[in-house]
């Protein structure tokens, strides 16, 4: 069991299975097909992300360095949250980027399905966590792996 301390961007508690992307997470490319065709598991459709491609994202503790790609990204996360297909939480090794922050905050302020979001967990977090690990998130930004 390992603990990491980050900054809570959208504070909250979560417990979920880890889904780890070591490269930048392209929000639009990842959610595009699942939102369009009603896939409740939110299966990742980003062909350029070998860590996540064709894996379900809904309800997972999404562990990532940052998000990249289209600036519809925040809106896409917000939409996923409104439809109940959002990750259980967003855990960033780096300081959060503007698109992910927008998505997490929009979901927190305007939807009924907030995504607790923690950033600045450090590179060692992404090195330690593996897809399938059990993750617990506390309101103060403490993340427990295992």
């Amino acid at each position, binding site marked *: 069991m390992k603990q990491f301390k980050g900054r809570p*961007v959208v504070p909250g508690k979560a417990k979920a299975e880890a889904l780890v992307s070591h490269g*930048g997470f*392209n929000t*639009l*490319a990842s959610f*595009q097909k699942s*939102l*369009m*065709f*009603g896939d409740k598991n939110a299966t990742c459709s980003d*062909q*350029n992300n070998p860590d996540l491609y064709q894996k379900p994202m809904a309800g997972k503790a999404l562990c990532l360095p*940052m*998000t*990249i*790609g*289209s*600036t*519809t*990204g*925040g*809106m896409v996360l*917000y*939409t996923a949250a*409104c*439809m109940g297909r959002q990750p259980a939480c967003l855990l960033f090794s780096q300081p*959060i*980027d*503007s*698109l992910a*922050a*927008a*998505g997490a*905050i*929009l979901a*927190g*302020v*305007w*939807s009924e399905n907030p995504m607790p979001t923690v950033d600045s967990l450090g590179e060692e977090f992404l090195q330690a966590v593996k897809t399938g690990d059990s993750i617990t998130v506390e309101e103060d930004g403490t993340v427990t792996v295992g």
Partner: protein
Amino acid sequence: MRLTPDQQAMLDGAKGETLAKVMKTLVMYGEAFGAEEMVPVTAEKGHLVTSFGLSMMKPVYDLMDQLIEGGAVNGQKFSVDPRPLDPNVPTNLLQKLVFKFMYSKQDDYEAQLRQLGLLEDDAFTCTCYLPQVGNEPKQGQVLSWAESSAVVYANSVLGARCNRNSGILELFGSIAGCVPKFGLLTDEGRKASWVVQVKTSRRPEAQILGSAIGMKVMEDVPYIQGLDQWLGGQLDDAAKAYLKDMGAASASNGAVGLYHVEGITPEACQQGKTLIRPDAQVYVIDDAELERVRASYPCIWKDPNAKPKLCFVGCPHLSLEQLNQWTGELCAALEQAGRKTVAVPTVFTAAPAVAKAFAKTPAADRLKGTGVVLSSICPLMYMNNPLCGKMPVATSSNKLRTYSSARYYTDAEMLQIMVKGEC
């Protein structure tokens, strides 16, 4: 965060609950990045990234309704990204049916846009900054935009100031008339943490150079050296068109919101190497590196050896200069091959205002004679139709490649496909 009395009143609900939530969202957004104040949006017009009435995006349209009902209509008029539909773009019956289902909210959404402050009925393009369109910010102006290719162009080529905002957030900034000051709105945030040295033997393909830069620097600011020699040493229309495409590729293949090109872009010309941070990393791009990057693109066509069934050129939309150049090169190549029309259905895309300006030139009839369709559609929205996505579509856009099943080809290869049907 320090707020002015007016901003604080809005946050406290003096202008209603909806505007209070708009301001709360902006304040939280700013606080996530350590912003200490809001600054006024000083550009005359806004621009929205959401142009499509996609049936599955219902939550976004519900939010728009909340804004309209709450009186949170826009302080700024705005342009919007391209429409997702154009009957002139080749489609079969089944594809048409799917489009009808997918974009069933289009008319309703456009009605919402008109209520919120749409500039004019034809203000749908991702290249709102082109002079024909009339939404060209000035250096130093603060924007609340989100379209990634427009943000990177406005920051880099025009010297305006805008963060890589998300869709919806950009509308909130326009409504509130202010945005949190952080990142690319600050002098420090506009400094480069990468020096990109272009050491190629010929002018790099803009789309591959931008892709390489984006994949390497991600969201950082690069200072690009050695590119000025390939751009003629000045920021003319040809250089602007090149930088438009390079920037769009860097923004979609990575998350670049601003780049400086030594001797070319305004801030690089004014401030030179003082824009480079002392601890900046170096990335050398030579012919081999560009080949490596190109070779890394996956081809997800069902049959990788298939002949293209459709060609898309213009994501982002083409400038007038590019439309003229493509028309000239295509007509010359067709003539050389002894053909009058293209061998593969081909769509060139440009802003409605650019297409109107092009229609007044002699080149317009020449292009029409080749069989190429000139449209203002969003190619990505077209490719989102799963029946279109199954087709082998060729494109010279790295952005379209990234977000769809379209396969990337260089400009020269695209020309060959249009003339011979294959590359």
